[in-house]
């Protein structure tokens, strides 16, 4: 058993992959709590795709790809907030419009780049097994900043998500708080994506928080448990990937999905099977 655990760790790429997976797992799972509670799952997915033109433009300008991605993500996030603020267009429509426009612009730009190959696909689809130390440091630093902001603004984010009317009564700048949350989400997506890719980010933003939601009744507990589940999914997923010879990203996603299904069926308070068993009891 011990040997089973240690063998993969003798490879440097596995060590880095584990650190990256745990970092991204924790970061996405914590921000993801707000994503699912504020029904922003679609937004998270949209942002992950909408960074494409930012990367393409940064590439054309020989700039920093991560910076390009970040600028694009923040612009799209704030744009969605702006369009849906007036209330004439529903938010999901605003997301749909901006997200597809950004994606189309990205593809159009990329098609004009002849030499496009490894660099762009790397940032879009990520490669957890090929992460360098520099990437790790960037992810860790940004992660610490994001988590600090989440802790500092706990009251504000809680109220704006649970009861925006109270935020108005308190005369808090609701729009700023909402935008701050969107920017944190954009940052999380961009730093996570180049390590683990679009698909994994979208999954880690939703699946671990949804699992934790089924098992807890308070937001702080939900965030802590979600972070644990995110990190655990990354570790277990990577081991499965190593031993079963599966691509690592999907292995992590499927592990998280498996944990969700277990909670969905057996959660003491909200579980499907529990409910059925309870209701089947003779009166």
């Amino acid at each position: 058993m011990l040997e089973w655990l240690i063998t993969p760790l003798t490879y440097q790429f596995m060590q880095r992959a584990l650190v990256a997976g745990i970092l991204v797992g924790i970061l996405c799972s914590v921000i993801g709590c707000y994503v699912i509670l504020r029904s922003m799952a679609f937004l998270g997915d949209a942002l992950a795709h909408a960074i494409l033109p930012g990367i393409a433009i940064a590439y054309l300008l020989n700039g920093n790809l991560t910076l390009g991605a970040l600028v694009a993500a923040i612009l799209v996030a704030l744009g969605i907030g702006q369009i849906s603020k007036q209330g004439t267009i529903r938010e999901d429509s605003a997301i749909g419009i901006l997200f597809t426009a950004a994606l189309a612009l990205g593809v159009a730009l990329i098609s004009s780049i002849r030499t496009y190959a490894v660099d762009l696909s790397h940032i879009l689809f990520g490669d957890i097994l090929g992460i360098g130390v520099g990437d790790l440091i960037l992810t860790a630093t940004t992660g610490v900043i994001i988590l600090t902001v989440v802790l500092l603004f706990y009251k504000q984010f809680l109220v704006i998500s649970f009861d925006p009317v109270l935020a108005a009564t308190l005369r808090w700048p609701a729009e700023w708080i909402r935008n701050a949350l969107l920017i944190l989400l954009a940052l999380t997506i961009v730093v996570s994506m180049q390590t683990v890719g679009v698909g994994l980010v979208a999954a880690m933003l939703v699946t671990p928080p949804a699992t934790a939601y089924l098992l807890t009744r308070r937001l702080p507990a939900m965030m802590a448990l979600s972070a644990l589940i995110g990190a655990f999914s990354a570790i277990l997923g990577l081991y499965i990937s190593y031993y079963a010879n599966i691509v690592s990203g999907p292995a992590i996603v499927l592990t998280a999905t498996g944990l969700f299904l277990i909670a969905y069926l057996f959660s003491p308070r909200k579980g499907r099977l529990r409910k059925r068993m309870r209701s089947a009891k003779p009166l």
Partner: protein
Amino acid sequence: MTKHTDHEFPEPARLDIDNVTAGYNGSDALIDLTLQIPPGSQVAIVGPNGAGKSTLFKVLVGLMPIRKGSIQIHCQPIGQHRDCVAYIPQREEVDWKFPVTVRDVVTMGRYAQLGWFAQPGSQDSEVVDDCLKQMNLLDLANASVGDLSGGQQQRAFLARALAQEPHILLMDEPFTGVDAATVETTLALIKNLRQKKVTVLVSTHDLNLAAQHFELVALLNKRLISFGPPEKALTQETLKAAFSQQLVNMNGALLVDDCCPPDKDHHHRGDHA
């Protein structure tokens, strides 16, 4: 409430609404409303669906901008009084699936008194305990709000409003869709707040309840129809002016036909992001 909170209610709040017009997307839900609410008084806001009752409250808490006119609390324009106005939202305005306990909800009432980065301290939790006790919710303090009955949920929000120690309390349709016990608790609380000199505004479509339990009634139908003690504000003429379509005269007794769908601003959430 106990001693350490009593000093938090200084002079009763004076509320002046001067010539206010407001509404959603082009149409005015409230037109040229002028109302002087005497300090510490308890006012029922009545009127047909779509009369602008919810709009008035949204304007008062700053959720909706004023198109015209001005509102002053304590003789200062609104927006200056963070901790002054508490609002009990309508049930459909709250996300009941959110993972918060009853105690969490009531603790949010203390946020008005706290700085941006300050955490609630032991004095805050004492106030929270007091408010929970007053609303008979101590046993349920650690339950999820989503698991409560409708009446208990309303009491949780009443407790939160108490914890805010407001000068003005706004309640949007607190007597709709709750059980008789909750109606009683709510009325008892309103009576109790009268001693604390809290100005209370309650919207309701129950004219009888308004006439029986409130010293002042404001009858709205986008514009102010009448304002004063119930026997003066609710006469045949004023009711006819407010409810023209829905008023049924049955052998001399006026009945309000209240079966039409609720106005759309009842379902408007302030936040879509």
